[in-house]
């Protein structure tokens, strides 16, 4: 079974600085997709960024970028120029491109605190 591991329960960053959240996953498949979701105190789940496993290029969305290391099964999220509104719980998630029937497997989450 696929597993997703976030080894950092909590992280903190100063406003305007850069922070990296870690995620590793375990799979034997070659076709899969990875995601980072943000859950602020409002508890709404917001998609931050998406990566296709067969694409070498790391995904970027404005201040958010990933470092996708397929061989190492690592998928970290870098937040640049951190803002107070980035404070939230961040979840890494995995889905198989093949036979998962749309199942998303989530990591345990990382709480990000942003200090002014």
């Amino acid at each position: 079974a696929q597993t997703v591991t976030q080894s950092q329960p909590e992280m903190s960053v100063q406003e305007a600085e850069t922070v990296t959240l870690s995620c590793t996953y375990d799979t034997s498949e070659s076709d899969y997709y990875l995601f980072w979701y943000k859950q602020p105190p409002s508890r709404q789940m917001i998609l931050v960024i998406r990566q296709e496993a067969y694409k070498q290029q790391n995904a970027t969305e404005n201040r958010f970028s990933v470092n996708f290391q397929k061989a190492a099964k690592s998928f970290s999220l870098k937040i640049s120029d951190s803002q107070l509104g980035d404070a939230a719980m961040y979840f890494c998630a995995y889905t198989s491109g093949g036979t998962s029937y749309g199942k998303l497997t989530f990591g345990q989450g990382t709480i990000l605190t942003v200090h002014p």
Partner: protein
Amino acid sequence: DTAVSQTPKYLVTQMGNDKSIKCEQNLGHDTMYWYKQDSKKFLKIMFSYNNKELIINETVPNRFSPKSPDKAHLNLHINSLELGDSAVYFCASSQGGRANYGYTFGSGTRLTVV
């Protein structure tokens, strides 16, 4: 218009009661899901429906029964509520029985059993 809407947002009830949570999506997606987020914030899939057909049923007690009257609606009925059922329940949707583009989530229902 809210893309995936869940009602109610908060639900407080006594042990032993039966309750339902409703979910509707207006995105035209054909796949809908229920996830449970426990007190440690861990998210775990419970059920998935594709075009009204149950396709994922994780190890969930029989007291939980999903119902999909059409592909835009997926309701969750819980019988004989227990303290351990207290959690946030999320409804979500995606297209084509896959999650290649992720899910669109509802805002969650916080269920508290007392």
